[in-house]
């Protein structure tokens, strides 16, 4: 049993995921339109991935920022579905991941889901724009 943090109509929630609920992940070699796709952090994103039912990015280490750039690019090609971080992720990196377009997180077994949930949005504002809020802070400053 692993815990999944996901965004349900604007609210972050924790759900326990049983083995039978594990998606039938395909690699970028075996993937076909409509199936869930799980990629490593070093792949080149393909526009056809837009049709995936779910995309997962497998982090080899929580300090590996390639997955953050990859998530940004997957959103740029127009993928609108659930984008999941899995592998060696860490609760203190989730808030960066959210801003790069991730919408769910498969927590490692040693990660307390309550702590992870509490780590997801430690800041009210950020200086620079992001996938989920493209306008930088100064544009909101000017309006405010």
């Amino acid at each position, binding site marked *: 049993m692993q815990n999944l943090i996901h965004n349900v109509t604007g609210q972050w929630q924790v759900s326990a995921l049983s083995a039978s609920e594990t998606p039938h992940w395909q690699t970028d070699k075996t993937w076909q339109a409509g199936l869930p796709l799980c990629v490593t952090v070093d792949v080149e994103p393909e526009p056809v991935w837009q049709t995936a039912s779910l995309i997962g990015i497998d982090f080899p280490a929580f300090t590996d920022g390639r997955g953050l750039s990859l998530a940004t690019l997957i959103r740029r090609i127009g993928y609108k579905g659930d984008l999941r971080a899995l592998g060696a992720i860490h609760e203190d990196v989730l808030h960066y991941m959210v801003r790069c377009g991730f919408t769910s997180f498969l927590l490692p077994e040693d990660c307390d889901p309550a702590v992870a949930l509490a780590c997801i949005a430690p800041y009210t504002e950020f200086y*620079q724009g992001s996938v989920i809020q493209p306008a930088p802070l100064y544009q909101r400053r000017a309006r405010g």
Partner: protein
Amino acid sequence: MYRYDDLDRQFLHERVAHYRAQTERYLNGQLSEDAFLQLRLRNGLYVQRLAPMLRVAVPYGTLAASQLRALSKIAREYDRGYGHLSTRQNVQFNWPELAEVPAILEALALVDMHAIQTSGSCIRNVTTDQFAAAAADEQVDPRPYCELLRQWSTAHPEFEWLPRKFKIAVTGSSNDRAAVEVHDVGLRVYRDQQDQVVFDVLAGGGLGRTPVIGHQICTALPIAELLTYMEALLRVYNRYGRRDNKYKARIKILVRAMGADAFASAVAEEWQHTRGGPATLLTTEIERIEKQFVMPTLHQHTDYSETLAQERFDNPDFSRWLTHNVTPHKVAGYACVTLSTKVIGVPPGDVSDQQMDAVADWADAYSQSEIRISHEQNFVLPHVAQCDLLALFKKTKAQALNTANVGLLTDMICCPGGDYCSLANAKSIPIAEAIQRQFGDYDYQHDLGELDINISGCMNACGHHHVGHIGILGVDKKGAEFYQISLGGHSGHSQRPASLGKILGPSFARDEVPNVMAQIFSTYLNQRHDEEDFLSCYERIGIAPFKETIYAKSDS
């Protein structure tokens, strides 16, 4: 100076609260050593040989007097009454308690300061010319663009976990005092023929184990696209930089592996996607930031040079100090003053709480309440009226900040070395001290002229030994501390391009170093033509005559 508003302060307070919670989780055993390491680094906290070390960011080396007083208070309350000016214009404290760091960060936040991203594999504090907005030779004040980069790079969601640390330096003068050619990214800001602010972008420079001069990959980048271009550049590095070996993870290795042209093309291609996008800077924002750096209104002074000449004549110590520590200001009647921290018996860059308070008072009295830190580890008062120079000079003596040695032999750059740093192979502070003791005589130094001696305790090159006219590097030889000497390096100031030093030959034991220095100096003095400085002489005669003198003698 940039003034924080409510949004800047809100972010800073949230950051302190965030780190306080992380520290508590660590102390309660809820956060692993490995995970906490990454988080504390991004909040400035290293664990050194003897104790943790907290590196406080001094954005582009600029401090208000009130901020320096806050640092002084921290030195008294949380440290042993002193701090250290680093080669990246930051301030380091060597003895804080890990559990007290959140309280220190809170004290910093009260004066709009922080330690965010001063270590770890992320975009570090942006550095620049210590004489920004004041130097007579400056074309454009680089600080507004440093501040735009600071805001953009702070907690950037995509670039917080890079392959390795990432350092950006900016110069607005062709006399490059920021060493932009030896940074991961170096920016030269100037006005083009249409009077628009533009940037030349250099990438892939750096010191460390593999010293490299950066390559220019973009010319005349418009200010509006500064951040969209940086986003593209960082994305290419973040995706393709090596992560398998930390010694090959800096951007310079990627640029070399791809070739500078191919790297430039990859960035240009990615830039096609980001250019004109949401990170494009609006004119209103550029102007909002520029406005905060408008030069303070300086009172008009009549020409003071005649009186100054008389004061010089009456006071030889003052005269020496004017010659070496005072440089031309862009406004007539003003000067930039460097307060040297390099005195015998004090590690280069170390300053006491009393010195900090005194410098803050002098800044209030004589320099528009503004202070700079130079990458040569000295304090700078950027806007001093010429008629106040003598009064200021007289005050500096009581604080031992009056040494007239800026740019001379004893004004060395030196990392903390094996006395403090757990990475070091050898001590560097005792080397600096031995050289200062042997060659501290003013007339001898003055005769040698402009000379940069840079000392690093290991290959990481925090003491910038590759770009010293004379570089000294601590190495480990079968468990013993030895020192490798290089000649002919240069960081790119005085209108010369940067160059990397050449290794002289086999390394020396610590007690041999001062004698080797003496031989290098005498070779130069014997070989120089008239007014030729050390570097020009070296460039003309090469390394051979130095080798012959030094190794021939040691063989006999």
